[in-house]
């Protein structure tokens, strides 16, 4: 997927003017995942303590990541599975294609996977003559519309039912054009019938992994539709797309993370299907895939270890930070221009596509702190966004006006006497200029602010001088 994160401002402006998108986002922010999360959290008195344990556990894993990954790998191999280590997206794509070619596979079904989006596996397989079919309903909808996901757990949340119906009519040409498609139920039944044939026909099933378990060499997927299970159970080959930070030590540790995941993501007590897979079909089994492969992707993650961004590797991709972000709620996921939107995307995207292309994202935040307050593993997202802003400044990537402005401010802020003189002068001048209205509708060099809102005029005296007078 071509990143358009550089054009965040233009993307956001377009999103704000899109009435249908605003309607969908309004529904989501008002009565969607956030509201349901609040209810689920209120029912579990231990939730805050679980968040703290989740954070501690993930930190422990990161501190011993080499050990847990090697243990996990040993156990996968002991169970007859294969592990493919991949430094970057290109190696991961090549590894998946090699598995398909090695087994003569033609059709591939796919469960939802953010690593799959990150490495753009679908375009690559298609370019190489293999047809991947997304089976998560939301992913299927955006696949037939040739769009990227707008949310990490609800990829088609930006669409109205009329848009989905239109896409179904365009994609499902063999069906009666006069069939009714006004209700979600009708569209779901249509998709279920079409995808059921795909499940049964596929040679390879690709899924993501919410967690990997070192103790047993297992992968875990969490879904509500059951598509992930049909994807990995029916074909001859199961390929898991995973990345290095997904590993947890034991099944007990998986239980801790699962208690956090569903509640944080959708507000469910537990997702409908949580499936733990350990290796390929065994001699005594009556079904299951003959081969079990795991793509183990790094793609820049190991470079975050030991640095100021390491906390981001705790992320379990629940989407809570998106659901509670006023910026995401206003512009939606596509404005962020790549696969990971919202606060977690603003921190992760610069790592994956480079700060030069993604610097707008960590700036698209008011630092209100809601994301950090709902994060199941307490990632300090505002702090991490601030780190990116500092790097942007250090690398001279910020626009000249911003850099000069900040340099001028820094010069003053380091000289308190001068700062006081300059600020009381500015307060007096602006107070005098704005004395009639008490606010400004336009101000030189501040059009970015005044174009959409007024700037209140100062009262004339700075706080410091008022304080001095009062004493």
């Amino acid at each position, binding site marked *: 997927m071509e990143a358009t994160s550089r054009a965040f401002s233009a993307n956001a402006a377009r999103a704000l003017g899109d009435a249908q998108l605003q309607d969908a986002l309004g529904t989501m922010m008002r009565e969607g995942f956030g509201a349901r999360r609040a209810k689920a959290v209120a029912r579990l008195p231990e939730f805050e303590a679980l968040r703290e344990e989740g954070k501690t556990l993930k930190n422990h894993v990161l501190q011993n990541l080499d050990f847990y990954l090697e243990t996990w790998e040993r156990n996968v191999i002991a169970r007859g599975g294969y592990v493919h280590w991949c430094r970057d997206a290109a190696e991961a794509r090549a590894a998946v294609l090699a598995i398909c070619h090695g087994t003569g596979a033609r059709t591939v079904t796919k469960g939802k996977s953010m690593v799959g989006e990150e490495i753009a596996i679908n375009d690559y397989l298609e370019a190489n003559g293999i047809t991947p079919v997304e089976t998560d*309903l939301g992913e299927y909808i955006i696949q037939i519309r040739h769009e990227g996901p707008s949310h990490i757990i609800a990829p*088609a*949340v930006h669409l109205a039912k009329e848009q989905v119906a239109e896409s179904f009519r365009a994609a499902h040409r063999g069906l009666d054009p006069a069939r009714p498609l006004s209700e979600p139920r009708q569209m779901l039944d249509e998709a279920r019938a079409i995808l*059921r044939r795909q499940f049964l026909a596929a040679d390879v099933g690709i899924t993501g992994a919410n967690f990997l378990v070192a103790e047993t060499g297992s992968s875990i997927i969490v879904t509500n539709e059951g598509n992930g299970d*049909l994807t990995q*159970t029916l074909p001859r080959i199961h390929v898991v797309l995973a990345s290095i930070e997904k590993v947890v030590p034991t099944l007990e540790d998986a239980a801790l993370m699962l208690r956090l995941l569903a509640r944080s993501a959708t507000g469910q007590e537990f997702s409908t299907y949580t499936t733990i897979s350990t290796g390929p079909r065994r001699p005594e089994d009556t079904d299951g895939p003959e081969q079990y492969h795991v793509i183990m992707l790094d793609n820049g993650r190991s470079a975050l270890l030991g640095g100021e961004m390491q906390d981001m590797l705790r992320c379990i991709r629940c989407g809570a930070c998106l659901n509670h972000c006023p910026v995401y709620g206003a512009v939606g996921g596509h404005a962020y221009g790549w696969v990971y939107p919202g606060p977690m995307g603003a921190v992760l995207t610069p790592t994956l596509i480079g700060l030069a292309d993604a610097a707008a994202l960590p700036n698209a935040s008011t630092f209100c702190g809601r994301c950090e307050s709902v994060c199941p593993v307490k990632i300090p997202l505002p702090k991490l966004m601030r780190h990116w802003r500092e790097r942007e400044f250090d690398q001279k990537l910020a626009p000249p006006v911003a850099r000069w402005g900040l340099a001028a401010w820094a010069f003053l802020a380091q000289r308190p006497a001068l700062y006081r003189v300059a600020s009381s002068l500015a307060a007096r001048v602006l107070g005098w200029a704005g004395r009639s209205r008490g606010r400004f509708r336009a101000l030189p060099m501040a059009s970015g602010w005044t174009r959409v809102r007024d700037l209140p005029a100062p009262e004339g005296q700075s706080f410091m001088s008022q304080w001095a007078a009062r004493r």
Partner: protein
Amino acid sequence: MSDARDEILGRIRAAVSDGRPDAARADAASRLETHPRNLVPARARDLGAEARENLFVTMAEEADATVARVAVGGDVPREIARYLAERNLPARLVAAPDPKLENLPWQETALELRHGIAADDDAVGVTASFAAIAETGTLMLVSGPASPTRNNFLPETHVVVLRAADVVGTYEEAWERLRAARAMPRIVNFITGPSRTGDIAQKLELGAHGPRRLHIVLVEDGA
């Protein structure tokens, strides 16, 4: 690919071994040995059998499953026949090749029964549960010769037979039971209610790709 493996693990090692006390590695090794419990919510801890069962039923129903309690295993076929008739569903079903299911008195009903692996046109499937977790109303099914995984997903109506004695409070108890009973199976399916999606216009619909209905027959005494 082994170059990639060595490079990735090498980078990780270089980044984390700095400042890692030797004791940390010992902690990690012992964590795998002893699999200590993390915080376990009080909701389902230390409950008596009856309270545990009741919590399971409440939580399962909340997740849109239906639950019927029967006294003994011999009542299971009649309950399933009743359930299917009440909803006007086909009286033809595929049961997992599980001795616990094969030995039930199916002949007492008019149900048409086949034991084996589910196919696409099987409308109703019956499987047995390894255990169930009261905390969230979740069934725990494991793969093996007696339980093909696809039987849990292909039929539109999924009926699960669960012994009351197999209802545990928490996930931690379920792991203990699993470790005591057998090696890690290929698949562990935790199932909480029938399949669902909210992907079209954020409207929740039951019956996405998996079963539209989940009916749990809870057998109070053995099975």
